[in-house]
């Protein structure tokens, strides 16, 4: 803290910049700014410095190049608190959807034999490289996720992870269940709440952008059985669950187990 202001950095790795955009688009930011000093935030501040000490470092994006792997280490050294923001930073993002295709394969499909002078790496969550203190989930996180996190920091507390699924919010909103009633492949039952069941509220099945609930209470196996009864194949189920959970080892393990059990 300098002159009573919180020193904030917002850093981007490989992403769509949606988390920063969500943050920058909040009208409340104008009330926050007088209490903060923006040390690094390239999207809005020309005088940004990536290697200065900060109180809170927000990181969006997956680590997808050698340079980014170095950058996150530097950010960790400089920051008191590191917050991973959004699906890319917390779960590796949609770019981690296909763990079966190697980097070489992807590279060849897109760039052929062309050489560029960068060192790409397979997309990974920030936590694979450094210790992360807190996480804001979502693609993008909701505005209230930002307000809640910053609010808790400013009063000397910290943001708690939500440990219940989207279904809870769906019930509270009084939506009809599109999984049970329409057979749509809704991932609400295993996805972390906090979005107020945004997509099911529009009659659109949840695709799991806030990631599977932690603490090993995301029951991929139970949901897989339900999907199976609705006519989905094992491969389809794993594929869907992995759009936003590409790095979660439980997906395959538990879905496989559920299918074995059914066969037995």
């Amino acid at each position, binding site marked *: 803290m300098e002159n009573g202001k919180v020193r904030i950095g917002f850093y981007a790795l490989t992403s769509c910049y949606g988390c920063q955009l969500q943050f920058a688009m909040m009208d409340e930011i104008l009330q926050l700014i007088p209490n903060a000093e923006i040390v690094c935030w390239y999207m809005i501040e*020309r*005088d940004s410095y990536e290697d200065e000490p900060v109180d809170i470092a927000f990181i969006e994006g997956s680590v997808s190049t050698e340079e980014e792997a170095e950058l996150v280490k530097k950010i960790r050294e400089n920051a008191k608190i590191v917050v991973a923001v959004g699906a890319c930073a917390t779960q590796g993002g949609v770019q981690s959807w296909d763990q079966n295709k190697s980097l070489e394969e992807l590279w060849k499909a*897109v760039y052929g034999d062309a050489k560029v002078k960068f060192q790409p790496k397979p997309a990974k969550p920030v936590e694979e490289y450094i210790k992360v203190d807190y996480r804001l989930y979502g693609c*993008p996180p909701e505005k209230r996720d930002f307000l809640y996190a910053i609010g808790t920091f400013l009063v000397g507390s910290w943001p708690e992870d939500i440990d219940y699924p989207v279904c809870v919010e769906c019930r509270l909103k009084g939506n009809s269940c599109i999984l049970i009633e329409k057979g749509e492949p809704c991932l609400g039952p295993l996805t972390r709440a906090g979005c107020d069941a945004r*997509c099911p509220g529009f009659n*659109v099945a949840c695709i799991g952008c806030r990631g599977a609930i932690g603490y090993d209470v995301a029951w991929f196996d139970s949901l897989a059985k339900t999907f199976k009864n609705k006519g989905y194949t094992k491969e389809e189920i794993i594929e869907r669950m992995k759009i936003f959970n590409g790095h979660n080892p439980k997906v395959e393990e538990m879905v496989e187990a559920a299918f074995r059990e059914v066969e037995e």
Partner: protein
Amino acid sequence: MKNLYLPITVDHIARVEGKGGVEIIVGDEGVQEVRINIIEGPRFFEAITIGKKLDEALAVYPRICSFCSAAHKLTALEAAEKAIDFTPREEIQALREVLYIGDMIESHALHLYLLVLPDYLGYSNPLKMVEEYKKEIGIALELKNLGSWMMDELGSRAIHQENAVLGGFGKLPDKATLELMKKRLSEALPKAEYTFELFAKLEQYEEVEGPIIHMAVKPRGDVYGIYGDAISVSDGFEFPSEDYKMHMVERVVEHSFAKHSFYNGERPFMTGAISRVVNHADKLYGRAKELYESHRDLLRPTNPFANNLAQALELVYFTEKAIDLIDEALAKWPVRPRDEVEIRDGFGVSTTEAPRGILVYAIEVKDGRVAYADIITPTAFNLAMMEQHVRMMAEKHYNDDPERLKLLAEMVVRAYDPCISCSVHVARL
């Protein structure tokens, strides 16, 4: 021959979407080399969506970019629907364009007020302008909020709209909400005009003045707009969207994860708001047409800085057009949100005008899955031209204070409103 190299670099251009840098190499012969370095990692969108279910791939494509996620969603949707041989009803198409306009309004407002204006007023960061420029920041927020809210109501949210689906929408807002949208749009019109007047006063640097080839989607129904099935070139040539690969040739360059594009394989070209105005101003109507007539000399085809003013003109135009499109849908109210679609095999190309210019999606569907995908984004189209304009600026200023040159080079880049996350894209060769 001995060269003294003096690299002038901006490692990370601020106030643009994404991560890129500018490198200007000056030798004793003047400017030797200019490079826009794209330093974000690749995300291989086309490759990861190959073999995936169509609806899931469509949920993932918008994640290419947040500033124009609605543009990605709606262009991918159109390519997919063409591939499966489905045509949305007129009222659904009208409402999709309203959603797209929400993106256009938000993106232009953010770019003009938060990314461009601070340079002209001498600020490093728009949030510092609040005290001195309360009115401008107020208008910026109001326009931005209007665009976001339109996307919330029609798309489920302002970033990554899940409500636009194959066959239509998951759910539509009620009539009262659409009436309110019209009201808020008409209230925003004077603010859009104020924006135009404001940007008409800003300097367009003559250092970068020169002939430019402009490309823009030829709008359907001969009314200035977003959707179209052909591309017009400012030299009078026109080609169907399906032939994009023949006339917009991509090449990999070493210093960038994004490819560069050339018209007929040799000439850089520009796409974006100014290109739309240059090629299709005769299709404008309403207040925007009047403003165009009175400011033609500033909306000129020879300067990339005119892109800022062209965006301001579009704020006016699209605000009016959205009202008309909502009326079109209301005339058929109540509107059924969604039609059943049958996922057949096929191939479809969609070209639309995203906030930053032509966006191309080509999708082949086989057995309900994506068999082939090709996506080209406006910034990828623009990179070659952008480097040329930065070079022109550098040639006039390489003896100046490097800080001044850096700022001017950045301002050239910012006039293009580049979207670097978009450009780090993914095409098969």
